[in-house]
């Protein structure tokens, strides 16, 4: 009997310790040897596996940048595909260390969900896409009264949609799906007249449709959608690492440090570049975060600066050809701005 009781208490204690996550995410990540990064199940340009199964995209590269900062090796990422409804529980439960999945930064998500958003890696806005072949003459979202609209559940999109149609006194018929693929299939099958999500997503989706040229994205942008990576609340060190990885990529672009020239930039005479790349004597650029001092070299060497990652995945070098727009550097008319790395 005594043995049994000891056994029960022992296993309970074991469960208890296993279920309570350790506070230091950095230590956990280092022990695992990889960053578990929650990404989209397959959104072209942002995160989607290619024909060899390698994850490609803007968000996927951000995951790699964090891995490069922590390990000095951009390949040490475990990509965890999550759908719109799973993503938050995956982060809350500790299944992933970092969520980089087209997630809109909102007040309630920042507070009651127990997350911290580490910045905005893509300024987006919600739009509508229609099949111009089937609906000739529609060139504004304000003409959509009475339309059936496909939307994914659990998104800010769903709420903006309701607000927009109410504000404009228009009727609509929501067709709500849980999965990205089911929503796309229903739109393609003609179940809905319009598809709504962030404009970046619409452009990405359009390319995957059978006849992309038949579909047009309407000009109206009905919401602000600042998309950014998120981490769990309560671990400031990890929050700082992810936040400054994004800032470092933006800073690198500002300073003209690219994936190709980062090694030779290490010898630059510019004191700012030397500081950012951790080449100053007694540099604390990394140790203040719990990283190596040349971590920014590894980040830029691993994935490139912000502009390179943007152009390669969703910009002019990609099939999506999304213009930089708001995502241009602040020096060039956009709003991407990094606090000083010092």
């Amino acid at each position, binding site marked *: 009997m005594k043995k049994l009781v000891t056994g029960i208490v022992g296993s309970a204690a074991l469960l208890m310790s296993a279920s*309570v996550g350790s506070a230091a995410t950095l230590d956990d990540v280092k022990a695992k040897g990889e960053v578990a990064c929650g990404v989209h199940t397959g959104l072209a340009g942002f995160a989607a596996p290619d024909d060899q199964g390698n994850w490609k995209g803007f968000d996927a590269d951000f995951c790699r940048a964090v891995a490069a900062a922590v390990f000095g090796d951009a390949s040490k990422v475990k990509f965890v595909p999550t759908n719109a409804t799973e993503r938050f529980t995956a982060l809350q439960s500790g299944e992933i260390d970092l969520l980089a999945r087209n997630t809109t930064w909102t007040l309630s998500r920042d507070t009651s969900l127990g997350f911290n958003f580490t910045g905005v890696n893509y300024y987006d806005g919600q739009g509508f896409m229609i099949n111009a072949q089937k609906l000739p003459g529609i060139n504004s979202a304000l003409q959509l009264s*009475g339309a059936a609209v496909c939307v994914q559940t*659990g998104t800010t999109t*769903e709420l903006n*949609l309701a607000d927009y149609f*109410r504000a404009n006194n228009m009727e609509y018929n929501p067709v*709500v799906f*849980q999965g990205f693929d*089911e929503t796309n299939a*229903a739109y393609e099958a003609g179940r809905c007249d319009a598809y709504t999500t962030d404009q970046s997503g619409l452009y990405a989706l359009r390319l995957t449709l059978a006849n992309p040229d038949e579909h047009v994205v309407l000009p109206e942008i009905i919401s602000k959608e600042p998309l950014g990576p998120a981490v769990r609340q309560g671990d400031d060190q990890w929050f700082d690492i992810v936040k400054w990885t994004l800032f470092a990529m933006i800073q690198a672009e500002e300073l003209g440090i690219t994936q190709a020239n980062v090694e030779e930039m290490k010898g630059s005479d510019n004191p700012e570049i030397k500081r950012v790349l951790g080449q100053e004597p007694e540099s604390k650029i990394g140790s203040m975060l719990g990283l190596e001092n040349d971590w920014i070299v590894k980040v830029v060497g691993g994935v490139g600066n912000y502009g390179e990652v943007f152009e390669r995945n969703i910009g002019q070098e990609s099939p999506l050809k999304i213009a930089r727009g708001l995502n241009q550097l602040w020096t060039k008319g956009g709003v991407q701005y990094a606090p000083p790395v010092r």
Partner: protein
Amino acid sequence: MASQDTLHASDPARVSWMNDPKIRGIIFQVLVVAILSAAIYWIWGNTVENLRRANISSGYGFLNGRSGFDVSQSLIHFNADSTFGRALIVGLLNTVLVAVVGVITATILGFLIGIGRLSGNWLIAKICMIYVEIFRNIPPLLVIFFWYLGVLSVLPAPRDSIGLPFGSYLNSRGFFLPKAIWEEGAWLIPAALVVAIIAIFAIARWSYRRQMKTGQRFPVLLTALVLILGLPTLATLAAGVPFTFEYPQQGAFNLTGGSQIKPEFLSLYLALSFYTAAFIAEIVRAGILGVSRGQTEAANALGLRAGPTLRLVVVPQAMRIIIPPLTSQYLNLTKNSSLAVFVGYPDLVQIGQTTMNQTGQAIEVVSIWMLIYLGLSLSMSLFMNWFNDRMALVER
């Protein structure tokens, strides 16, 4: 233990309390209850602690918050200003709706196919067998997808809707029917229907008594048919046809007006009915085969014809075998309705998921799901048990 045995050695007739089955039973039950409550207490405490640590707010207060989203199909009034609590009620009603109509259709279909499989007609028996074997061996989700995507992609766009009799239309947005707009005096029609039903029950009772007394029979079925069709028709004419129809019209995007049955509901309803009917058919077949052949022969020997033999001798006995497994098929259908999320039918699970995502209250929503499905299943079981008791053969 050994020391206790020696203590009682002076009284050989008394058994050690350790070996008394009654006391042992109590001890083990107390032990199980204690371990169970300790486990629940620990899980509860651990959850609360982890939620607090992760800075996740908890509690059921979110149910009173403004939902902010719209639902495509709702039996009660709902819009984005309604609360999350009301949204979950909408979901529950949608689940109940698809479960109830699904159970009715599956039962009718299942009985027909089950009896068809026993038919002497080779073609009917084989068709029924193929039906059962196909649907019993496919996962229900695939059947739902077949109905949703398979049928959706074949049906034409709203502009080329297929016109059906009585001003109804079929297109990729669903099935459109004319809607009756009731006018003054319309209450006469449902009232007539109620009167007809009461009259049928009274006539059935009277005819049974008369048959017991005199042996004479009365054509109850025919009378019932005449009453249930005739009385409402008379009432309609008497009130001067108190309704008009609103027909579906071609709108900018879709047919407007009339009532619309959405493809999400149709595909889920048809898939669940067809899938479950295959299982019910097998249960019905087993029930009928379970009545020994001697019963039929005895009835024939008494001079009963085939119809009364089936109705009075075979079916009542078969029902005893059929009802208990039928209950679990009904429960399966109800629970399978949660596959609605894959076709976007706003059932309890789908709306719960939306709520979970907008509020982040995963544990609370999951607990509501579990409670509601448990409640649905238990009430259905209770009803079927009551029905079973009524149908069970009373031995005299």
